């Protein structure tokens, strides 16, 4: 089982990296989603896969039984999923806004922030007026 999941992880990473290397923001987004899932799966597998009882303590006992699944990797994965989800949502909004502002999803065609464009003699107040 570990071998299969390890291969799945590898495929996800490979696909994620491939998509990240493309220069389209949407593909990069999907690449990062795949990578993040690959890492979550890796945490789960690295924690050790066993056929045991759920990590619950039976009523009346104060310690768990002899064989119990390790609850820590599951907690870690859960945290990582939640954080990863929040980051992906932010990235989605950011990419959409940059598409609106820059008019392209192709990173090659994004204006290289050279002299003329980066500071069209703006001061901070005009930036503020644009507002968040």
């Amino acid at each position, binding site marked *: 089982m570990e071998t299969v999941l390890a291969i799945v992880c590898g495929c996800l990473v490979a696909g994620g990296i491939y998509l*990240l290397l493309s220069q389209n*923001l949407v593909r*990069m987004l999907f690449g*990062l989603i795949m*990578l*993040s899932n*690959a*890492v979550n799966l*890796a*945490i789960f*597998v*690295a*924690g*050790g896969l066993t056929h045991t009882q759920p990590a619950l303590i039976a009523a009346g006992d104060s310690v768990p039984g002899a064989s119990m699944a390790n609850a*820590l*990797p599951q907690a*870690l994965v859960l*945290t*990582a999923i939640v*954080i990863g989800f*929040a*980051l992906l949502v*932010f*990235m989605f909004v*950011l*990419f959409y*806004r*940059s598409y609106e*502002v*820059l008019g392209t999803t192709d*990173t090659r065609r*994004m*204006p*290289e*922030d050279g*002299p003329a*464009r*980066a*500071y069209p*003699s*703006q*001061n*901070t*107040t005009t*930036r*503020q*007026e*644009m*507002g*968040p």
Partner: protein
Amino acid sequence: MTNLLIYPILLPFATAVGSLLLWRRPALQQTLSLIGSAGHLAACLFLLAAVVQDGIQVLAVGNWPAPYGISLVADHLSVLMLMVTGILGTATALYARGEMAISLRSQGFHALFQVLIGGISGAFLTGDLFNLYVWFEVILMASFGLIIWGQGRAQFVGAVRYVVINLLATLLFLLGLALLYGLTGTLNMAHLHQQIMTQESHGLVTAVAFMFMAAFGIKAGMFPLFFWLPASYHTPPIAISALFAGMLTKVGVYALIRTFSLVFLHDTATTHAVLLVAAGLTMVTGVLGAAAQNEFRRILSFHIISQVGYMLLGLALWTPLALAGAVFYLVHHMIVKANLFLVSGLSRDCSGTLELPAMGGLYGAKPFLAVLFFIPAFSLAGFPPLSGFWAKLLVIQSSLEAEHYTVAAVAVLVGLMTVYSMVKIWIEAFWKPSPDFGPDQRAIVPSAWKIAPVCALALITLCIGIGAEPVYQLADTAARELMAPQVYVRAVLGGAGP
């Protein structure tokens, strides 16, 4: 066990919550943010005093004993970094008071700013690797919001690069974490130190170590992983880019120092040798990149990279003197670099631009500003008796003692190249006659909120330079603690450990 450790984390978050509650009262929000920053600085100073007096402080959060619960640990390195965080937080909060108009549009700024400070403090204090990951995410979230603050066109280009590469670094960190947990079954750094020393398969641990090195290297701007940094740091408002320049890459450097002095010590011949080469290349590429730039903040951004090289060099040499040099360098660099970014803001207020060819005449129009630039710039370049001189001296001296003559020569050469860049800014922006177009520079007076933090940071630079001894003593103690991890492990796990 002391609760003192929680305040540097708690205060910024409480301030963030408070400023969110004051959503419709921007003026009050502003005041609260300033008070919160000052309180954070005070908390950091109290903690510094406690650590200097009683040694390493440990707090087992929720009273769960290590290694099962999360422990917060403050040793000399942590509290020194925290102290500088407090200073920079207060300075940039003051500057932001002058830069951000008090209006309903700047509602979210203070909350994000305080969350960033709280996240950085958490990263410096935690003694648990997964907790460090969580703090990294907190820092990332807040910095994502801040880097596109104002939503200028150039900021989006910078932000996309910043966000993608930093997410990749975090995922790499998490993957390394997963494999490390699979190998050792623990995430507490002190416990990891014990576990890895008894591991048999050192090859796997080394592979994981390089994963961590790449992840933190991206954050720190290490060669060859630094390209995102100069592509994004010159875009946000001045107060934000000053805080980023001062703090964020240094969190990466701190994480590298912490993990490679406490966790991955099984094979220093490999890991620290790679670090040494990377450090040398980081110094050189950073300074060469800066030489090719013609924009104030872009030059400074490239110099962050070359200076990170010096700190990594201190870690890579792995002697007490070199580590003391690295810690001293961190303290000096954070203050000086943030100050230079703030000075660039004052210059932009006067000249209306940061493009060096379009600037000029500031020395004649604003001699006081010229002095304010001169102090941090030539401290960065390493002129005696400013703080940068002692920092460079320590690192170069230790590389000579360790008989790494090539690296020492590179370090000296990079110092000279830094002088070149600083002189370039000096000549272009301050010395040469003002171009005909542009506003009348004499008529513009930057607000006192902006000048005060710049003066204060310049004063601190002077104090560190002239009274280098106390800071060196602290850095030296920090280095000795790092070289003897048993003390740290005993403080966290207590006695012989579980």
